[in-house]
């Protein structure tokens, strides 16, 4: 067996003729290609192959890219702010929440509606430094864990989520269960004696405002960078 292996090794280690050394010239004439002419660097065959493949790629891209854009477009599109009247000023008080129904998506019936808990701004409770100047506090019922609808339980003075047991205090800050940040809020304004609710915004644990994030996305520490703002999010 041994001599044969030596023989094999000598074959494998023999210098291989370098293809690039042989085809050094960029001119087809010098490379000895049949039908070459003076000054030609790309053969007609090669030109046709590249041309046909390019034409095919352009044709495929011309329907694939617009179709992909149709599917991915909504990710990048912002929505104009909607303001909806939810009641008059004297319907609400400073100490307890009144549930109102807000339409997030028109024309799809119940699926496009949500419940919002509204009360008047109360300087004795709302002591955080970010809410100064607001006349109303509107807290979304969308749980910050995975989006189930939370309910304000008067006796416990807590928002409680039926799905996975998230519990929030009067200001919507999580005090138990899996939620990663406080409940979202809505911008409010008063026109005459009408209370209007506008776009949603999210808050971190110090109630600092952020553009709306989906449930389950923490905003404290590195969270705000791991879960970036939507490309189409508008600043108010």
């Amino acid at each position: 067996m041994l001599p044969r292996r030596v023989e094999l090794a000598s074959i494998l280690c023999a210098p291989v003729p370098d293809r690039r050394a042989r085809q050094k010239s960029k001119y087809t004439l010098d490379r000895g290609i049949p039908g070459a002419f003076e000054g030609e660097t790309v053969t007609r065959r090669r030109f046709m192959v590249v041309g046909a493949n390019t034409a095919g790629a352009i044709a495929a891209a011309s329907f694939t890219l617009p179709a992909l854009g149709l599917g991915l477009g909504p990710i990048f599109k912002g929505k104009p702010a909607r303001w909806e009247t939810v009641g008059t000023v004297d319907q609400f008080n400073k100490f307890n929440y009144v549930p109102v129904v807000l339409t997030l998506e028109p024309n799809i019936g119940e699926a496009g509606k949500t419940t919002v808990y509204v009360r008047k701004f109360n300087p004795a409770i709302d002591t955080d430094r970010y809410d100064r100047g607001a006349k109303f506090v509107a807290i979304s019922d969308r749980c910050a864990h995975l989006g189930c609808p939370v309910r304000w339980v008067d006796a416990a003075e807590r928002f409680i989520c039926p799905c996975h047991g998230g519990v929030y205090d009067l200001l919507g800050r999580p005090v138990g269960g899996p939620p990663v940040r406080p409940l979202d809020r809505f911008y409010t304004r008063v026109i005459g004696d009408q209370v209007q609710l506008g776009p949603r915004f999210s808050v971190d644990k110090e109630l600092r405002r952020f553009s709306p994030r989906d449930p389950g996305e923490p905003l404290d520490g590195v969270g705000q960078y791991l879960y970036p703002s939507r490309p189409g999010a508008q600043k108010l």
Partner: protein
Amino acid sequence: MPRAPKIPAPPLPGPLKEPPPRPGEANGAGLDEHLKEAGINVVDWVDERTSLSGAARWLMFRKVPKGTNWFYTLGSATLFAFLSQAVTGVFLAMYYRPDASGGAYESIRYVTNDVFLGQFVRGMHKWGSSVMVVLVFLHMGRVFFFGAYKYPRELNWVIGVVLLILTMVMSFTGYLLPFDQRAYWATIVGVNINGTGPLLGPYLSDFLRGGSEFGATTLSRFYAIHMLLIPGLLIALIGAHLYLVTKLGTTAPPWEKAKKAAELREAEV
């Protein structure tokens, strides 16, 4: 191309031989003879133009290792569960209306209560989806515990895992379509679970919803993913999966390999 000469049939024993034609009958070929020949002629005609019989032989008449048992049928069972989902799904799509403002729920109610066999076919689709998921996992377990994922079948394992994920996507997108309370809230939670993936999660959940909130096109988006996008991928990958099974063959169960190894050891000693 000249036609290949036909190999003469081997001689039949005397009692099986056709009697010679009686005088007056034309060549012994009655109508029944012609009808018998017709089927063979059609198959021959197609085969001469496609050479499909070779592919069919390659696909069907394969050598199977010793020890092959009932566990080896789990893959075919999964395939038939998928075919059942495909057929029932196509006909359910004739009645379904992806309308979030009440039409979707109403169309499902109509299929279930008013259409002939509607409840049965919808039930097949609904329960069949669970059957398929269970069978996929059993099939995966069979492949794992029999060591059938090892060289040279690693690529088939990878394709199988992609098929498993696509089956899960089918389950997820199909769950929304009845558009009742359970479907709606399960989808809200499911989409938000997708959103918790760092960096890409928010984009994924916006893609699934078609926007930042559950909107007018979310249902039709799920419907299109459920009945066009994923089934196309599933069919293509099942084709690749079956091609590799046919090309590489199946493995013997591990105990057969152990037996063989023991015999070898004895022979060597």
